């Protein structure tokens, strides 16, 4: 199997099939990041597709000493933060109920398990949506991608100590949200913990 770097070289030489292979490898990583950041399946799909397209357009700028996944997630991260900022200029609706993710509602074998997963997911998204985009991104990369502080700092183009601070503040805010008990999170969190 070819490495990511070998595939990138082929893409630069005009092989679109090599890019298709990279999309297959990292579509879930990019899509999940966009979904956790934006909280909406449709917008997440569009944002993740846009991130792949940008990666394709700027493939020559990719530094092969970095992992391709890190570079792609960095593009996705910047694009999602831009979208959130633009969205705030037009409308702000953190009180709107978040739509459940189709992947958690469609193909689960047991209805009860599906409902629990759906509720937990909605609770997580509700908690995340209250965080500032920079804090949200740090939390998502830490929990869903199991990244170290250094790796998160690399993606977010900041320092390790900034990430340490963002994670601490984000966790304190999330904990305070549990204390206020205003979201669905509390009950679901108690069940799932």
């Amino acid at each position, binding site marked *: 199997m070819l490495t990511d770097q070998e595939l990138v070289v082929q893409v630069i030489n005009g092989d679109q099939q090599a890019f298709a292979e990279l*999309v297959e490898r990292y579509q879930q990583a990019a899509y999940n990041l966009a979904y956790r950041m934006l909280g909406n399946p449709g917008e997440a799909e569009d944002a993740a597709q846009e991130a792949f397209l940008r990666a394709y*357009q700027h493939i020559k700028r990719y530094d092969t000493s970095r992992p391709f996944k890190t570079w792609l997630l960095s593009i996705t991260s910047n694009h999602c933060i831009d979208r959130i900022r633009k969205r705030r200029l037009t409308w702000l609706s953190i009180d709107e109920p978040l739509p459940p993710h189709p992947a958690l509602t469609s193909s689960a074998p047991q209805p009860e398990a599906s409902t629990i997963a759906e509720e937990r997911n909605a609770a997580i998204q509700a908690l995340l949506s209250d965080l500032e985009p920079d804090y949200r991104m740090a939390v998502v990369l830490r929990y869903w991608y199991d990244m170290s502080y250094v790796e998160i700092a690399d993606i977010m183009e900041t320092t390790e100590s900034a990430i340490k601070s963002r994670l601490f503040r984000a966790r304190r805010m999330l904990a305070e949200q549990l204390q206020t008990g205003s979201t669905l999170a509390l009950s679901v969190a108690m069940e799932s913990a």
Partner: protein
Amino acid sequence: MAHNSYEVMMSLALDALLTQEEEKELNQHLQSCSTCAQLWDDMTIINTMFTASAEVAPPANFSANVLARVESYESGRRWYPWIVGVLVAASVIAASLWALPALFLSLGLPDLLAEWPVIGEIIDAATRGYIAIQIGVSWVVELANTWFSYLLNEPASLAVILTALVLASTWIGLLEGIKATRNAAVSSQTA
């Protein structure tokens, strides 16, 4: 140690970034401080909840849609030089068509070629058309010029026209304002 430092330590503890001594110190503090103990419980709940949450999968057609966008971008890139080429060629042809008759007339070629029956007729028609366009353009320019010079030479007329424009726009603005106020009143009554 300050209260805030223990809060930072809690976050680091969740990422397994504390030394054994620091962990011990944090545990001792949590046993004596109920506020921090509560925060630690909540942070742990969040930690468990988020850690247990799986990545969500993209829709089945995601990959195909990305490749369609890539293909669309590539085809745009393929056509771009052609589009630019056609536009440049069209501009050159248009400029030539506009300039050639003038060159033609200035060289006196119509007189030379007029002796050829068919070509002579074509040249006659083209020349007449070109002269007609020139007359039309100069007539429009002259008319505009006359109007402008009249208005500039007659400040009183210019003032009258400007005043009329200001009055008309004020009147329209007033009417629109009244209409908007009425609409707002009606909608607030119905609400």
